[in-house]
């Protein structure tokens, strides 16, 4: 990847973090850890890998995203706002009465959100159906599915993965957010899931594991999924829950946190200086 493209994607990831923080701070609290861990993959997806048109969010030929860990809504909304799917100012309506930005992703409310999620596990089967739908319609659109590692405790997730492989859904790209934490703390302590790469391979996926907070590594892994080979793709993203804001990442129980004005100002300044360094 050339240096300028890399910087561009890194800058986009910072902008997405700032936007997510904007939304969460406006409310005073939110699912910050899981939103921050996926900002880099969102930057790569919406920074060029996905075929989307912010002016035409319902365009049938677009690629689709299912954020099955629907509580990461603020990360997705941050991305969509930065890309111009809706006005940036609207981020401040997160969870407010009558908002188009509810805490969990909702396809009937937010321009650019392709599927409703929030009850963990359900997005995986929905994504399979969507990928199958693309094939039946004769479209070459891809479906990207972000799944939480805690979420993968759900049996439905593995039913969906069996289905995807059995039906050869090679237009489905599973992005497993292996951030090692879920709501009650370390995934290893709550319910150890073993080796995801081995699991995905055993289920019949074309699997790679990458640094999920590194845009270059993500870009490389995603490029491999442009042409199908008869198997669904899995990218195990080795990430940090809370990535991009050191204090959040270092708070072990960072699933949902309050964000006060002082923290907001300090974290925004840190992100701004990163942005300046990348764009300066």
């Amino acid at each position, binding site marked *: 990847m050339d240096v300028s493209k890399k910087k561009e994607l890194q800058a986009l990831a910072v902008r997405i973090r700032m936007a997510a923080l904007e939304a969460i701070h406006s409310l005073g609290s939110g699912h910050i850890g899981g939103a921050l861990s996926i900002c880099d993959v969102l930057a790569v997806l919406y920074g060029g890998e996905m075929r989307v048109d912010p002016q035409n969010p319902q365009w049938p030929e677009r690629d689709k995203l299912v954020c099955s860990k629907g509580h990461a809504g603020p990360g997705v909304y941050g991305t969509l706002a930065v890309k111009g799917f809706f006005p940036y100012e609207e981020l401040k309506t997160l969870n407010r009465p009558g908002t188009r930005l509810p*805490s969990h992703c909702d396809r009937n409310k937010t321009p650019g959100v392709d599927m409703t999620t929030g009850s963990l596990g359900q997005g995986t089967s929905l994504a399979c159906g969507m990928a199958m739908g693309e094939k039946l319609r004769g479209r070459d659109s891809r479906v990207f599915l972000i799944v939480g590692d805690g979420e993968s405790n759900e049996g439905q997730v593995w039913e969906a993965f069996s289905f995807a492989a059995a039906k050869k859904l090679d237009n489905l790209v599973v992005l497993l957010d292996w951030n090692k934490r879920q709501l009650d703390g370390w995934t290893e302590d709550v319910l150890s899931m073993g080796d995801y790469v081995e699991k995905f391979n055993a289920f019949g996926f074309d699997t790679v594991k990458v640094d999920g907070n590194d845009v270059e590594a993500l870009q490389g892994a995603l490029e491999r999924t442009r042409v199908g080979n008869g198997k669904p793709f899995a990218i195990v993203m080795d990430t940090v829950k809370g990535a991009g804001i050191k204090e959040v990442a270092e708070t072990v129980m960072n699933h949902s946190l309050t964000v006060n004005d002082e923290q907001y100002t300090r974290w925004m300044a840190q992100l701004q200086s990163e942005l300046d360094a990348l764009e300066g």
Partner: protein
Amino acid sequence: MEIVYNGEMDKRACKEVLGRVIPQLVKEDPEIVYLDADLMSCIGTLKGTRDVADRAINCGIAEANMIGVACGLASAGFKPIVHTFGPFASRRCFDQVFLSAGYAKNDITIIGTDPGVMAAMNGGTHMPFEDMALYNTIPGATIIDVTDPTLLESAIRQCVNRKGVKYIRVGRKQYAKVYAEGSEVPIGKATVLREGGDAVVFASGILVHEAMKAAETLAAEGTQISVLDMFSVKPLDEEAVVEYARKTGAVVVAENHNRHGGLYASVAQVLCERCPVPAACVAVEDEFGEVGPQGYLQERFGLTADHVVAQVKAVLARKG
């Protein structure tokens, strides 16, 4: 049992009660096991159960499996208490509850937190307006719509030793104080909170407080109503329903649930069969939930004292 309602909030949030009582029960009784689905920190049970970790089992985010495991433990003689958020404690695992627990007679206690609009900021996907309707269809089940922290503790202690499927729905926040601390409130019996001859409001959960506020407003206008706490949605105190319907001749049912299959449906059945009088409800219409602060949602879905007042006036007009 002593009633101490004066409109003020109980200082203890129900989260604190859950965080204290569940670990206590596990420690007191070696037959009790506690299972959760990655939501222990949400009810404050993580720390308190550390030294009884073999009987405090975090199942991960896998609710249907958790119910099955609890049922297996019940068959080995244990008394499981299971917790997750309301929608995942009802819709998400309903067939497992119905068959592995209900039909197979493996007795378990299920606690579903943040019912109805109490799911507030978690939004529509987390907002069960139908959990009681589902549990109502399970033969022999018990359904408790919690009124306040004291009732919560009393209900959990009764449920663990009760037969069948037991479902307790409770918000983690504060409730208006109704019962004096330490009161035992027997399941199956409605509690009369206020006597008045013009109409009766059968209420449960957060709507008890709304109904009591409505009673004050109405009293100031010269209308006297009875208010009953129907926390025991199943088994329902049918005799109390009939008695107060006869006494007043006008019924309003108020619940943080939709009008289909919950308290209103159960009360209406009793009225139809035994004592037809004008009736109406303060409940969610045929709608899904949405995100927002609880106060906004109570307005949005029509679950406030003002709505109770309006419905009482409506049934009084029909009473003629």
